[in-house]
Each structure stands twice: as C-alpha cells, then as structure tokens.
C-alpha cells in the first residue's frame, strides 16, 4: 500500500467510516473497529512545535507537545473525535487541557486502565470500563453489534498472531528485513483498519521470511517508540539487528492470551492483563527485568538500548534499576535521552557507535568462549 497515512484516513472517511484520534497508548481498539471507527493513533507527528508552547511548558515530553500541536495546527479537523487513555500524568492533563480549556469541538472519550497489580478487583474494574467506553461510543457512533465485535476480536487475534510470528522470526534471525522496514510496517497498525493491516502484515511476512539465518549483532530496543528513526537506520548501517523490543508502541502492546475468545469483553480484559510488563500499567521492576531477560535469552541479544523520550517519567524511573540488574548479569546497556523527530546529534551517534563496538566485542568473546 503506497498511500500516505492522511490519504488512507481520508479514503476511509469517504467509505463512511468514522475517524478517532487516539493518544497513547493502551485502549480497546476492537470496540472502535466494531463501531466502524478507524483509530488514528497520535504518537509522533512530524511537525515543528509552534503553537503548543502557549499551552505546555518546555519540560513536557514531545509526545504530548506534538500531539497538541497537531490539533492546534488544524491537522485533526477531519477527525470525528478523540480518545485519551490514561497513560501518565502528562497525557492525563493534556486530555483535560484539550477537553476543558481549548475545546476540541469534537466528542472526547477517556479510558482509565487500572494501575494496581492484577487481581480480581482490577480485572472487574477494567471489564466495567471496557463496557462503559463501549456504551459511550455507541451513543455517538452506534449501534454496536455483538457479532461485529466478535469478528473484530478475531481480527485483533489474527493481528497478534501475525505480529507474534514476525517478532519470533526476527528473534530467530529468519527475517530478511531492515530495522527501518520492520518498524515502518509494524507501525502501520497505528492507523490501518484491521483487514488492511492483516493484509499488510501477511504481505510483509511473505516477502521477508527467510530460510537462511542472518548474521550480525543483535540488541534489544526498550522505550516508548522507535523515534528518532535515525536510530534504526544507524543500526541498519552498522549491521545490527533489533532482535526484539520492549517498546510501548511495539511489543508491549502485543495481545497475548491463551484463552479462546468467548465473551469478547472478557477476552479483551484477559488480553490486557496478559500484555508484557509496562510501567504505564504499574508493572514491577522484577517483572520488567524478567521480561527483558526472556527477550535477551530468546534472541541471543548482547545489549540493550534504552531509548527514552526526554521527560518521560514512567520510563526514566525504571532505567537505573534495569541497567543495574543488566550490569550484574554482564549485559551492556546504553541510555539515550531523545526528543522525537530531532534526529541524532553527533554525540548520540558516537555513543551509539561506541556501544555497538562494545556489544560486538562482547559477542565475540562469548562466541570464542563457547
């Protein structure tokens, strides 16, 4: 598919679908799909901040600032509403700034997901919130047919399977795709309707599945999203593969549930509580560490890059402990403090190159030892 995101969304609108601007990160997309709503996620629009500075201090992260800029520049005028999941303090207050003060002139929806460790109370509450959101959306965009919801849950499941397969192949070094191409494709899920996304993923799988095993060093990429994209291209240039990721808009959102879908709401709740650990859901350091180690083991990665968006509190708090634990286990790691769409400074580039050198040496020493 060679049309731009904007062209695609406009095309969908022409087909009679409704468009919902969705802020990061976790929300029940199946409910939107079942209402014939296309979620257009707002993560890192390629804009220069011109107007958002009148509403937000410079110490607010660029995901939030760019998201507001997109609205203020009128680039969301063709959307039919906004959905704000409760991800962090900054997105929480941004939602209120837009809804209460700026006035989105469109319906706004909010979705709170529990932050307590998962138990019955959290699960029941999550389930209730799913139903409450469905009821609210139905009032504006209804009706919501259960058959359609079931169908979309199946599609979501299919997407997860395809993504899972892609991630697994990549982890096994049997995916012939650059880092840049991998994330370009995966990230189309931020706006494609599920049938189109499934087709896209199937096509990509067919093109990139490889019988031969790839060589080269492998690392794990952790953070919110793979931006600045220059990180990926630099890794490609250095012949380093991202073996797996721990990205909020990557594998942290992979819906993994062994349950067979029965009641669609129950199934969606089940998926939420089975997602990989994430600080925005209140996951503990130990859970995160265990997960990172499982990714390292599965991929044979020799290092971890924490690509942290500047001012992102949920990410920054965990980094020192994760780094420390990795160090104890002899896994080198690198922390990058990045602004979205600002490219890589010369210094960052040098640090990244030096880190890859360490990873390579580390890899060779392990290979020789074996």
């Amino acid at each position, binding site marked *: 598919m060679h049309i731009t995101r904007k062209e695609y969304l406009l095309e969908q609108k022409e087909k009679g679908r409704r468009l919902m601007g969705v802020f990061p990160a976790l929300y029940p997309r199946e409910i939107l799909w079942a209402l014939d709503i296309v979620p257009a996620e707002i993560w890192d629009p390629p804009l220069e901040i011109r107007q958002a500075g009148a509403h937000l201090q410079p110490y607010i992260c660029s995901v939030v600032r760019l998201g507001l800029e997109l609205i203020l520049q009128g680039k969301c005028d063709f959307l039919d509403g906004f959905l704000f999941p*409760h991800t962090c303090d900054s997105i929480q207050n941004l939602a209120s700034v837009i809804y209460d003060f*700026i006035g989105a002139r469109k319906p706004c929806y909010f979705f709170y997901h529990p932050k307590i460790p998962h138990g019955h109370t959290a699960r029941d509450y999550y389930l209730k919130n799913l139903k409450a959101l469905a009821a609210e959306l139905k009032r504006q965009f209804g009706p919501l047919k259960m058959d359609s919801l079931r169908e979309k849950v199946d599609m979501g499941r299919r997407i997860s399977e395809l993504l899972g397969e892609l991630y697994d192949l990549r982890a096994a070094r049997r995916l012939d795709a650059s880092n840049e191409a991998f994330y370009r494709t995966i990230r189309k899920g931020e706006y494609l309707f599920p049938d189109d996304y499934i087709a896209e993923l199937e096509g990509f799988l067919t093109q990139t599945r490889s019988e031969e095993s790839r060589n080269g060093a492998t690392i794990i990429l952790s953070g919110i999203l793979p931006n600045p994209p220059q990180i990926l291209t630099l890794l490609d240039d250095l012949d380093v593969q991202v073996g797996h990721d721990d990205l909020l808009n990557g594998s942290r959102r992979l819906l993994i549930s062994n349950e067979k879908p029965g009641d669609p709401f129950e199934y969606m709740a089940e998926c939420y509580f089975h997602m990989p650990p994430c600080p925005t859901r209140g996951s503990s350091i130990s859970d995160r560490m265990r997960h990172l180690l499982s990714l390292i083991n599965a991929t044979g990665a020799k290092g971890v890059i924490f690509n942290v968006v500047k001012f992102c509190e949920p990410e920054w*708090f965990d980094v020192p402990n994760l780094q420390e634990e990795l160090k104890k286990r002899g896994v080198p790691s690198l922390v990058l403090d990045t602004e979205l769409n600002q490219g890589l400074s010369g210094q960052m580039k040098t640090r990244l190159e030096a880190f890859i050198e360490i990873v390579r040496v580390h890899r060779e020493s392990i290979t020789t030892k074996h």
Partner: protein
Amino acid sequence: MKDLGAPLLFRIMEKRKKKRLREPNPFMGPPLKCAGRLRQIMTRHYYLSRFAKGARPVAWVTSGAPVEILRVFGFYTIYPENHGALCGAQKMGPELCAEAEKKGYHSDLCSYARIDLGHAFSGKTPAGRLPRPDLLFASNNICQTVLYWYKQLSHQWDIPLITFDTPYNFQEIRSGDIHFMVRQFEEMVPELEKISGRKYSHKRFQKIIRIAAETSRTWGQVLAAMKHRPAPMTIFDAFVHLAPVVSLRGLPVALEYYRVLLNELNERIEEGIGAVREEKKRLMWDNIAVWFKLRDWSHLFAERGVNFVAATYTNAWAETIHHLTEESPFESMAKAYSLIILNNNLSHRLKLMEKMIRDYQVDGLVILSLRSCKPYSVGQYDLKRLLMERLGIKSLIIESDMTDFRTYSEEQARTRIEAFLEGLGV
C-alpha cells in the same frame, strides 16, 4: 511509644533557636506564637521515628494517601514528601538529588523523589535518621510519579508496596470508580493485618476517621481565617503549619494543634493583627511551596505590603477530607481521596481557583511552574489566561523547583516579581 529523650532535644533546639533569632521584620506582624509548638510536634515525630522500628510497624506514605486505614493497625508513618520539603527548607535539596543522580536517576525527575532516593542511597537527612519502612503505601491521587518512585524503593529494599489506585476524574466521579476503590480497601485489610500483626478494629477505624475529618475541617477554618482583612497569617506560614494535617492526620495531636492555632488566629483577628503590617494587596499562590525561598519571599512581598492569603496547595487538605464519615468510612474515603485537586480535571481546578479568588478577595495570582510536578503544572498557562479573561486577575508565572535550586535563577525571579508588583501598583 516511650518519649526517649525528646524533651532534652527540644531544650537544645530552643537554645539554638534563641541564638539564631534574627531581627524582627518591621513590615511583618508579630510571628505566630504557635510556631514553637509546631516545631516541637514535628521534631518529636521525627525524633521518635528513630525508635519506632521494631516497636511499631513503619510505613512510608505519599501525601495524598488515605493514611487513616494504616492508623488502625498502629503504623508509624513517615512522609517522604514532607521530608523532601524539610530538606528543601534546609537547602539540602541539591545534595540529596545529586545522590540519586549518581545512581542514574535523571535530573528531570520530581525532586521529592530524587531527594528520597538520594536519602535511601546515602542515609543523609537533616532529620537525624529515618526508620526503614515495613510497608510502602502510595496513592496515585496526586500523581503517577509516586507509583514509579515507590516501586524503586520496594525493589531496592524488597519491601511490600500497597498502591491505592484512584481513577482520575476526567469528568464526574463514577459509581464504578467508587466501587473499585472500596474493594481495594477491603482487600488491603488482610494484607495490613499480616504486615502489622494487628487485627482490624472497625471501632478504632471510626474514631480515626472522625479525628481526621475534624482535623481537615479545622485546618479549613485555619485557612479561612485569611479571608479577613488584614489576614492574620500568610500562606508562607500555612506552608509550614500544613505539616500536621499531612503527616499526622488521624492522630489527636494534629487536631489539638489546629484548635490552638485557630484560637490564636481568631485572637489576632479580634485585635486587628495582620501578618503583614500594612496589607495593601492580597495574592493567591498556585502549586507547591518553593521551600528554599520561604523566608526570603515572605519578606520580599511583605516589604511591599503584599500578603499571600490563599493557595491551592494548602487548600488541598481542607477541600475534601472533611467529607469522611464514620458511617461509611470506605466509601467516603474513596470519594474524599479521589476528588482532591490533582486527581480532578482542570475545569474543576479553574472553578475552585475562581471561588478562592472571590472568597479571599485576591488581587493577583502567582503561579509556580514546577518542572518536578507535571500534574500540578500542565494546564497552568491556560488557567492563567482564563482567570484573566474571566476575572481580570493579573498573574505571574515563576519557573523554579521546590527544593532543587540548581535550576533556579534568583535574578530572573526577582526581576519578574518586581515587574509584577509594579503592575499591581505596589
């Protein structure tokens, strides 16, 4: 708990204080007599905490958490944010923050968190020594930051963390949210019994709830005393006198203290004693205090006949907690704690500020934009604009941190304050 040597400590403190006594400021009214008593209460609290370990279960608690439930089980409670403020006032912020930064914590993170982590790594504190907790108790009704922060401590020390999750009120509070919070309380009880080794007593709980509600109500009356002209105290006093309602809430000592303070304020009102001798203008403060500047700024404004008579921050402990009822302690706690200012939408904050500006006859607003605190600071630019549009109220935004003065520029702040005061005609 036995009062081991605290009286001696107070005597030493008093002596030291006498030595330190500075010239009275000619622009300010007589200082509050209660201040000494407050100092004693808080020093005693920190002093006794050294002996709490082993004698009583110890919990570290976030400032907005429903501490009443811990009191039932006899927890000795320490408030890292209050400790952070203390470090800030003692100008130890940068030193402790740097300890956390050495371990990799970014200097952009909340400075209360960095101070606390810095203390955890280095043991440095102006309070002598803080007891290591048996429990960490955090509620995200003030911010999500506390969850990220407390989980570091929990990991570091392998100590249980109980989180009280209060869904943010994007709009009105919903019955499902209340139910969710009540169920969390119900689930906490057996956990707290296990950690503390004490049984839950509903009767004790009701008594604590009663005291906490009354304390919050009395604190509200203390603040309301500043509606009078001239106001008998300043918000800089209130920032300091806030400590008991934050960290000793639910204990009789806090309530007793505020009754004494209220009496003193009423006496001052009757005698026409103002905190600022010639009160020409009245201001409101938005956000946490700049702890390392309290004294300087109280003098700076007083010299121009300007008094701060209200603050959204001090009001937070008077706004909802008095709604606690012993008839339905869990449900009323759920509502009271989830409706506090930082867990409520900005439309609510705007209305609250408008009401306070009217009730306290405020002439201008000083807004502290805090890099440390996103939930308090995001939205301030629009609040400023809207309050100007609706009430014609002038305001000033100051950039600073509450404790870490490495990023603070005295010159810039002074220039802005001077210009603002000129604009107010003083």
